């Protein structure tokens, strides 16, 4: 139930957990006392997680055990058929994609995948896509459009890959055109930010009718580390940068940048896989049902209007 990858601010839990483990070892049959300790741990987690700072949320969002795109596909989508390649240059494994069934409906599912071991992280290039990745997204968006498949995306990336070849093959053009294609699709697009929503690499997959965000996910124009070193000229100012950037789900919701926050249980999604899948599924499905009521033409024009006017009313913030 409690994994061992504790974050620095979870110190009080670590001590209790140690106590709990050793007590359990010595007295395996004292259920009452065990339950007491367990409850204590739950209470502390609840307390910590109800007051996470933006920087702490960044850490939770990047937690290596946090459910990734692969996990969502496995748990939310049945008869998944992976589809690969941009049909121009290469297959980019930092983006997983394919067709499958979601709540009895055929859909297109696409998401950035960071990997969860040294081997898989390298395989997926740490979730940082190259132009061929974004061009695969465009190809599959058009495929979905052609066959009337709603599109579900899962966003978890530090950003687009900064590399020589990525530049040569047109990283900027690929991102720009992914956004452009997103604005022309006649089927519903729902994007869920499940971990890190990093800058241009994220918006390429998050230009959508509805953008949902897990409570402890972050969505930002630059990493707090990058911001601290550029604006403060001091990499140690990450906490200040995280505060200033307004990158949490509640910040993004207040600013009208996202449409819905999906709550996480105390301890975060990485401690509560099953409930997270249930909640994400429910939230996506509710939004999908609403979007399916809108006709194609209106859907496209509503999506375009949404982005033409986004952030235009921030002077009337509550």
């Amino acid at each position, binding site marked *: 139930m409690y994994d061992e990858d504790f974050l620095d601010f979870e110190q009080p839990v670590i001590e209790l957990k140690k106590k709990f483990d050793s007590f359990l070892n010595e007295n395996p049959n004292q259920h009452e006392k065990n339950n007491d300790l367990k409850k204590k741990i739950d209470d502390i987690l609840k307390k910590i997680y109800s007051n996470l700072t933006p920087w702490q949320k960044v850490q939770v969002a990047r937690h290596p055990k946090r459910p990734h795109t692969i996990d969502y596909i496995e748990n939310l989508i049945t008869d998944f058929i992976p589809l690969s390649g941009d049909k121009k240059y290469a297959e980019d494994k930092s983006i997983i994609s394919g067709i499958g069934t979601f709540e009895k409906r055929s859909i297109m599912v696409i998401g950035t995948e960071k990997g969860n071991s040294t081997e898989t992280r390298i395989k997926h290039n740490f979730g940082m896509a190259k132009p061929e990745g974004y061009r695969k997204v465009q190809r599959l968006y058009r495929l979905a459009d052609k066959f009337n498949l709603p599109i579900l995306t899962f966003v978890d990336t530090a950003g*687009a*890959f*900064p*590399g*020589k070849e*990525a*530049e*040569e*093959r*047109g*990283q*900027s*053009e690929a*991102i*720009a*055109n992914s*956004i*452009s294609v*997103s*604005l*022309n699709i006649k089927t519903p697009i729902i994007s869920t930010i499940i971990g890190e929503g990093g*800058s*241009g690499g*994220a*918006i390429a997959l998050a*230009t959508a009718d509805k953008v949902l965000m897990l409570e402890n996910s972050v*969505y*930002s*124009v*630059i990493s707090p580390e990058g*911001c601290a070193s*550029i*604006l*403060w*000229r001091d990499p140690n100012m990450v906490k*200040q*940068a995280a505060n*200033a*950037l*307004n*990158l949490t789900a509640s*910040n*993004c919701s207040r*600013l009208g*940048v996202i449409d819905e926050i999906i709550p996480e249980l105390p301890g975060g999604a990485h401690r509560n896989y099953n409930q997270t899948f249930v909640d994400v599924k429910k939230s996506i499905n509710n939004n999908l049902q609403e979007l399916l009521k809108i006709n194609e033409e209106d859907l496209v024009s509503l999506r*375009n209007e949404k*982005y*033409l006017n*986004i*952030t*235009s*009313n*921030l*002077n009337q*913030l509550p």
Partner: protein
Amino acid sequence: MNWLTNFVRPKIRALVGKRDIPENLWQSCPNCEKMIHHKDLVENLYICNQCNYHFRLDPTTRLNILFGKEEYNIIEIKNSFDDPLKFKDKKSYINRLKEYRKKTSHNDALSFASGNIENEKVIVGVLNFNFMGGSMGNAVGESFVKGVQLSLKEKTPFIIFTASGGARMQEGIISLMQMPRTVAATEILKKNAIPYIVILTNPTTGGVTASFAMLGDVTIAESGSIIGFAGKRVIQDTIREKLPDDFQTAEYLKTHGMVDIVINRKELKSTLSSIIKHLKNN
């Protein structure tokens, strides 16, 4: 013009106190370090006569060169608010904005004007690198949308000169939203078959490159301009190998198929005129 006249004349002018001479009469070329007299620089459209380096232009100089002095109308676009996040790093964003407004006498980094190229009326946007590195926040996004709407209303070609370090970090997530916002505006041009021409100037990087700057019907880049998504240093730190000397230059991008035309500033106006003529001919 020989060295002596070039050198002596400014001093005499300084004595008679002529006012329209800029204080710094000699400028060194950022590329080859040659000292160039201001007058020569103006005559040569701010191109180094030794190495062909294209100096950065502020919007006024750019528009003067494109249309001729006072032969265009500035389009005033009022932005709805400043500093929605109350952002503060070492300095507060609102004070930074005040400083740059004073320094540049522009409200933000994107200015618009309308004028004629040959006989064709056009709407022209110019990103100002001198205004917080031409960074894109709400004001730039909002201006871009309004510029496009004006272009639609008057059915005039839409031309934009880019120069930007990318997103305006001081507006956090709001600045990221200007990417889909400006792209949505380019969709309006596309749907209405209004010519959209992008001129990439030095430097154009980050969120501006990865949104409206790469979506022109025709993409022109001024010779030698640095154009890219990620910064050279970031890339070098990531891949830990040496990058070619001409990496991310306009010429390099053309070789890799990312721009239509690399141009010398002196050829720009006539090329623009021809392109617009062809796109609007039939």
